[in-house]
């Protein structure tokens, strides 16, 4: 498949803004380096030509930004959606979180996004320049070295386990659409399931005890869109860190996982942004796997308006007791 180029996206964005289809463009803005792109809203073609960038580090999922962005300004907003982003997009539409009429969605193909931490682990620190050449990244560093690394070897976790190259929503598609993929995303969950209870507890205790309660996972999560979150309410008693030696992070993450169960599309943003590198997506994936097991295959965000099993009673639904027994 032909890799989509930054130039073609800039051309598309300028065309749509100049012919009046959209008034603003949500896109990735150039950073200090080649990998630190910031989500930004562009208001004219000049800004786009100057600062818009699309490369192997354009990982950020823009779906959630549409909630805020569609509430302001005149006209439509252009958003570029990678296949996995379209699932979040659909899920937000299903939950009536933004006005579809105010969005012009352009689907773009994706071969997976790189994780800069993995790049650094592979070729070292002090990176000055990263360019893409075929299926490789060429990395130049401060010390005069030029290293090559295969994109496939430094893909973000969610891209390694990519669930779909197919766009589930768009107004216009650039390039060819892909297919829903067979993937091994539940392998890690199975490993956890095969642990003893004590081992599993120790695993999560170790992971979650590193949590600093920065709320980045919640704030980036396209399923976490409550206008007022319980964890921001000082009266809830759980809005911040708790006393020393307690283990309230567990509660925070489990409440969050429960709240997004059946709505989480497995976009992987939570694990991408965690400053402590906690594999938070595994909690959500466990719920997805269980829902698949108990209620039949279901992928949140695959079809707009679909009723998730947890909010759709049918007579064939598994009895709660049976669900508990099967877990044992």
């Amino acid at each position, binding site marked *: 498949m032909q890799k989509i180029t930054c130039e073609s996206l800039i051309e598309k964005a300028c065309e749509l803004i100049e012919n009046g289809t959209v008034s603003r463009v949500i896109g990735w803005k150039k*950073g*200090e*380096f080649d990998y*630190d*792109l*910031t*989500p*930004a*809203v562009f208001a004219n073609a000049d800004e786009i030509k100057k600062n818009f960038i699309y490369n192997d580090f354009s990982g*950020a999922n823009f779906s959630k*930004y549409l909630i805020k962005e569609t509430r302001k300004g005149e006209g439509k907003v252009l958003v570029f959606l990678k296949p996995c982003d379209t699932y979040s997009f659909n899920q937000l539409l299903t939950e009536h979180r933004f006005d579809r009429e105010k969005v012009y969605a352009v689907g773009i193909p994706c071969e997976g996004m790189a994780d800069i*931490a993995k790049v650094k682990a592979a070729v070292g*620190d*002090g*990176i*000055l320049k990263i360019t893409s050449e075929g299926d490789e990244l060429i990395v130049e*560093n*401060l*010390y005069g070295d030029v290293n090559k690394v295969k994109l496939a070897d430094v893909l973000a976790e969610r891209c390694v386990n990519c669930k779909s190259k197919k766009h589930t929503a768009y107004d216009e598609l650039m390039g060819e659409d892909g297919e829903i993929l067979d993937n091994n995303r539940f392998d890690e969950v199975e490993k956890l399931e095969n642990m003893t209870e004590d081992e599993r507890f120790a695993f999560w205790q170790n992971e979650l005890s*590193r949590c*600093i*309660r*920065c*709320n*980045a996972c*919640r*704030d*980036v999560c396209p399923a976490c869109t409550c206008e007022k979150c319980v964890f*921001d*309410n*000082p009266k809830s008693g759980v*809005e*911040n*860190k*708790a*006393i*020393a030696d*307690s283990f309230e992070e567990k509660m925070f993450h489990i409440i969050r996982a429960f709240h997004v169960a059946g709505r989480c599309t497995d976009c992987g943003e939570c694990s*991408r*942004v965690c*400053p*402590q*590198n*906690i594999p938070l997506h595994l909690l959500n994936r466990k719920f997805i796997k269980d829902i698949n097991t108990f209620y039949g295959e279901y992928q949140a965000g695959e079809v707009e308006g679909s009723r998730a099993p947890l909010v759709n009673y049918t007579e064939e639904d598994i009895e709660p007791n049976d669900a508990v027994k099967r877990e044992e």
Partner: protein
Amino acid sequence: MRKCSLNSLNAVFEKLANDSALYMPVDGDKGADYKKWEMGDELSSALNTNRSAKDFFFPQTENLMEFKVSGKEIEVIDTRDEKEDFVVFGVRACDAKSFDILDTVFLSEPCDSYYANRREHATIVTLACTRPSETCFCNVFGIDATKPTGDVTCWKTADDMYFEANNEKGKAFIEKIADLTEECDSKAVEEQQAKTKEILKKLPLADLKTEKFGKDKTAEFFDAPEWRELSTSCLGCGTCTYVCPTCQCYDIKDYDTGHGVIRFRCWDSCMYSEFTKMAHGNNRLSQLERFRQRFMHKLVYYPTNNDGVFGCVGCGRCLAKCPISMNIVKVMKALGGNDGE
């Protein structure tokens, strides 16, 4: 100056760990973090630990006191205890400088006894940098990565670890490991420093300009139009504040255990929507205002109150960790720190 060969470094650590708790950055599968040293642990070569070294003095959560409540009566219980001595080994120049900044807050009158207690019992052993990252910009704030401060400064070469005491506490530390080290000249260290300095000059952020910011510049920057675009995609999470070695805002809260009430302190973030919320209103309602507060504090407010010293040490953690890759460097450049760029 004294040195030991890297082969005998473990013996030095063992000696230190027998004496008091010894902490140092150790590599894990999720990056480097400070860890209590045990035999077999290797000193990480990472520049930044995931979390900064501020945790040693200003932990993310700590219990302050307890209350016993019976009927209308309250008893206040002072639960503070004297800390034991400990050593933090391998602190980088940026984090070492952050302690000076935290000191101005916590040790100024009225002195925070919880912080002071830990600070007094700690010996800080710093480690000079040799392979800076592209995200490093400590030099911008006048920090010398080749000669970090602290009670003792160390330099690691291909074969040896060099030690130099900077004060009385440092001398006591050197004394402790005297049997395991030998007196030496500073030639190898100077060579390393010269080489590192050449690299530091080539860092992409080495020419970041600070002159426009600093003391009494509030009016110049407060209403700058750039804040809108800079803050537009800020998620309002606390990542930048919590990984920052100099951010020190805190919350004080009570927890009812059922047998009493524990009053504790935990990190808080000016990026959070409820940070300034009062019963009758909130004076920073938008993310723009909260975002501006954080950067104005580092670049203008803190310098105004502290003789022009900036509240940033250029460690680069926020550059690496912000979910949307927005950070102080981008803010400084957007606000005109680097004209014509």
